[in-house]
């Protein structure tokens, strides 16, 4: 695979773009994650666990680690990004390879799975490059990325992700009400130390409505918000990082 060309294919139901030399095939990595966590495959581990009436289940190492990350994210975001989608994430526990959750409580790990898959695929890069799955991106070395609405940005290191309602409708759920979230934002783009960090930040920024920019600023996470009326709001961290310095005259 040439290091300069962008290769495109489909995986995880999304358009994938990759650039760089990889130790491990990004397509193989993405397929492994989809095989374990797709809710559209009845044979996936997640589908089988959701269909099981048991309270305690033995799960794969990949599943237990992913659920640990999802529960960490839920704790970090005060339950805004919740693997149960209904505010009951504190009833879920994982210890080693044992999962405990109330019977009938379904899990949805989409909040972290795609970003984790992108991060793992990018971890296989031997050269500067990037992995983008449906616009969620992790980069090794600088890469320029086009932004929603207009403009572009250069990622120096880490990840970039966009959440919102533009392409899939209202799929982000307010876990307090269990209904699709209604905020003033249509799209929120955030930059994180990893694709997971960027994705979580973008989701939280979206769900927090007017408080989103400040929540990201408090953690020094750059965020860019596209409102439903087309207005573009950059938080302080984003604006500072992308400010073009004018030479002294």
């Amino acid at each position, binding site marked *: 695979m040439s290091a300069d060309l962008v290769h495109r294919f489909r995986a995880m139901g999304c358009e994938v773009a990759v650039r760089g030399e990889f130790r491990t095939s990004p397509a193989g990595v993405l397929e492994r994650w989809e095989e374990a966590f797709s809710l559209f495959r009845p044979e996936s581990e997640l589908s089988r666990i959701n269909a099981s009436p048991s309270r305690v289940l033995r799960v794969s*190492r990949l599943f237990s680690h992913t659920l640990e990350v999802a529960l960490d994210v839920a704790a*970090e975001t005060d339950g805004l990004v919740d693997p149960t989608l209904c505010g009951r994430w504190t009833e879920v526990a994982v210890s080693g390879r044992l999962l405990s959750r109330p019977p009938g409580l379904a899990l949805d790990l989409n909040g972290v799975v795609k970003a984790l898959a992108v*991060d793992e695929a990018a971890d296989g890069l031997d050269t500067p490059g990037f992995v983008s799955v449906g616009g969620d991106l992790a980069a090794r070395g600088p890469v*320029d990325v086009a*932004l929603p609405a207009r403009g572009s*940005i250069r*990622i120096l*290191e880490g990840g970039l992700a966009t959440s919102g*309602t533009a392409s899939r409708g209202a799929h982000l759920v307010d876990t307090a009400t269990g209904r699709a979230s209604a905020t003033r934002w249509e799209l929120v783009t955030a930059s994180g130390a990893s694709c997971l960090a960027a994705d979580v930040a973008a989701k939280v920024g979206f769900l927090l409505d007017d408080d989103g920019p400040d929540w990201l600023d408090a953690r020094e996470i750059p965020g860019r918000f596209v409102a439903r009326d087309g207005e573009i709001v950059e938080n302080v961290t984003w604006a500072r990082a*992308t400010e073009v310095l004018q030479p002294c005259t």
Partner: protein
Amino acid sequence: MPFSSLAGTLAPVMAEHSRIALARARARSAKRAIGLLTAVVFGVAFVGAKIHAPGHAKGKSKSLGAPSSFQRAVKRSVAQGGQIAPAVQAPPVSSSTS
């Protein structure tokens, strides 16, 4: 028989007995050394086999998954911002919702 002639008869016999006793002592020492060497060789081989013999699982097998170092790195960075700057060239990729 005079004592002097008896002593003359016994002297070769006693000398013969002394050589046999010495030979027996040497044989005992050699047997002990061989036994000790055998025990040492067996012990070293036993410990070596326990440590190095292939085909004997020394721990639980690990299922395939993301490397733990990678997972730790991801978990550490859940709420950390990335580094961005103004774009300098035409972007080869875009960020959007999927």
